[in-house]
């Protein structure tokens, strides 16, 4: 991985982000409803509206508004949320760690699940494990992701009340984290009761996010494992006395990972988007849930901040995937 490649990829991300910023700014200004009018009680005078408008900087010409806004954004200042009356940057930073923990847990779960299932299906090719894996993947993809979260609530939260169905941690627990990364912090402080509660609350939302990803990954990984097992290097390993299982894990898997990583990257972007809905379904306090509340309240500054945050997350993910791809596949390094 050369430094110039990394730099080039980073520079590519900048115009994308700037483009998103312009689009977001313009689109949100053409909103028909007046958020200021909605903030004030019905008896407010025109003078009150004007004063509030000036307070949020909504009375200046649009180009001036953009310049002021862009300048502030670059300094990390996204303004003040209209509905929550708090700084947007603080609100987002307060919620972002919860989303990141959830997404990473979901990706980890999906990768482990997909690897085990795909390897099992190829190891027992043509027998019942393959059939089970294929049908499970098909069924998972046939039912829309949105319904999986609700099905989990229904089956594993209510009919069999094994897991909690809302929130991030048991509120009666005496755990006062200093950062937003509750799980990481609980682990570092060896607070096992908090770790258990956090993980327990995370199981269903993470699984709801992970399931569609796991199904897609299983399919791709299985296909490339089958291909890899027919390649000369796998046949060579078998003739040298490696067992089928060992050849799969040691030889074929490494080579089959390349197309899978690419897909994970693509899917990972969808996963970040998927958090919006999953967090809403499970009342999980992350930025996705915040985004829905912001849209319903038509909280312009908060929406702008959140969209930029999401865009940044998408760009960073794609960057990370490109880099991982380059590290795995030596042929890309020179390109």
């Amino acid at each position, binding site marked *: 991985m050369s430094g110039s490649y990394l730099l080039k990829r980073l520079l590519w991300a900048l115009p994308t982000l700037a483009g998103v910023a312009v*689009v*977001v700014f313009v*689109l*949100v200004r*053409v*909103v*028909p*409803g007046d958020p200021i009018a909605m903030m004030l009680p019905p008896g407010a005078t025109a003078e009150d509206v004007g004063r509030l408008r000036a307070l949020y900087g909504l009375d200046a010409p649009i180009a001036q508004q953009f310049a002021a806004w862009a300048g502030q954004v670059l300094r990390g200042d996204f303004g003040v949320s209209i509905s929550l009356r708090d700084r947007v940057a603080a609100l987002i930073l307060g919620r972002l760690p919860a989303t990141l923990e959830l997404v990473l847990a979901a990706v980890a779960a999906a990768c482990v699940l997909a690897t085990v299932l795909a390897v099992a299906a190829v190891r027992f090719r043509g027998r019942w494990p393959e059939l089970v894996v294929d049908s499970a993947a098909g069924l998972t993809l*046939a*039912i*829309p992701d*949105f*319904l999986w979260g*609700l*099905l989990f*609530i*229904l089956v594993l*939260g*209510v*009919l069999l009340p094994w897991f909690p*169905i809302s929130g991030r941690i048991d509120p009666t627990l005496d755990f006062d984290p200093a950062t937003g990364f509750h799980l990481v912090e609980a682990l570092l402080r060896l607070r096992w009761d908090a770790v258990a509660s956090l993980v327990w609350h995370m199981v269903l939302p993470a699984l709801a996010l992970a399931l569609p990803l796991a199904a897609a990954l299983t399919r791709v990984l299985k296909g490339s494992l089958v291909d890899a097992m027919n390649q000369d290097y796998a046949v060579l390993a078998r003739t040298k006395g490696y067992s089928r299982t060992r050849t799969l894990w040691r030889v074929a898997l490494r080579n089959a990972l390349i197309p899978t990583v690419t897909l994970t990257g693509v899917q990972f*972007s*969808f996963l*970040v*988007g*998927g958090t*919006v*809905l999953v967090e*809403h*379904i499970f009342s999980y306090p992350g930025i996705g849930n915040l*985004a*829905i509340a*912001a*849209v*319903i309240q*038509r909280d*312009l500054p908060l*929406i702008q901040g*959140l*969209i930029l945050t*999401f*865009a940044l997350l*998408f760009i960073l993910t794609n960057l990370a995937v490109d880099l991982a791809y380059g590290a795995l596949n030596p042929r890309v390094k020179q390109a």
Partner: protein
Amino acid sequence: MKRLAREPRVVFGAVVLLALVVAAAAAPWLAPHDPLEQDLLNAFQAPAWKGGDPTHLLGTDSLGRDILSRLVYGARPALVVAFVAALCAGLLGTALGLAAGYFGGRADAAISRLVDVWMSFPSVLLCIVLAAVLGAGLHTVIIAIIVIDWTRFCRVVRAETLVQKGQDYVASALAIGLAPARIVAAEILPNVAPLLLTLFTLEMGIAIVVEAILSFVGLSVASGAPTWGGLIQEGRLYVNQAWWLMALPMACIIIAVLGLNALGDGLRSVLDPVRTR
């Protein structure tokens, strides 16, 4: 036609679609109660199969409204969105796809590039932006689906047009001096039509889910009027007391989507047997 009737997926899908259409069209006659009529004394009645009152076959919700009636009326927004959004997305995508595939060159480069950029933009973000700009309502749901999903049609139609363009019948049409617009509309389009029918059916399934999602988070029609997503949202609040409030609308959505998907897949295998094999 005979082959269609013998394909089980087509039959299952057609039955589901027909049931949807009948429910939506005949809702006032089919529904046993007014879906908005409240009866607070009879809230949270269990469905008849759990020993509830048989006049409320599927029970009542937190305000005593009849669940069965609300589910039947919920088919209306679902079907309207599915049909209108899939149609408009299909028209837009097909027009651009035909143009890109037939004319090639710069038009193709521009349209294909646009599709790539469009598809790399996460649909959730587009949805948030659109909902923020347009506000809640059925029109927002329809516009969001069109804006996000026209690319599906565009890509497939472009590829298919490229294939058709190489066929002899296009060469003969050119030879007898037909105008490009006429060749595209009268010669190529009919050959792409079976594919479009498949895509349209699948898109209807997607649109039903998107409508459910947006009404679930409160961005579809104003509350009160029943939508399947809205019913799920209400059911989610009382899921510990009455799980069926959430389960019943979910079942409606799952059946509708599986039916439309089966119809789309079945149509594809009957209308395009070579490619499926």
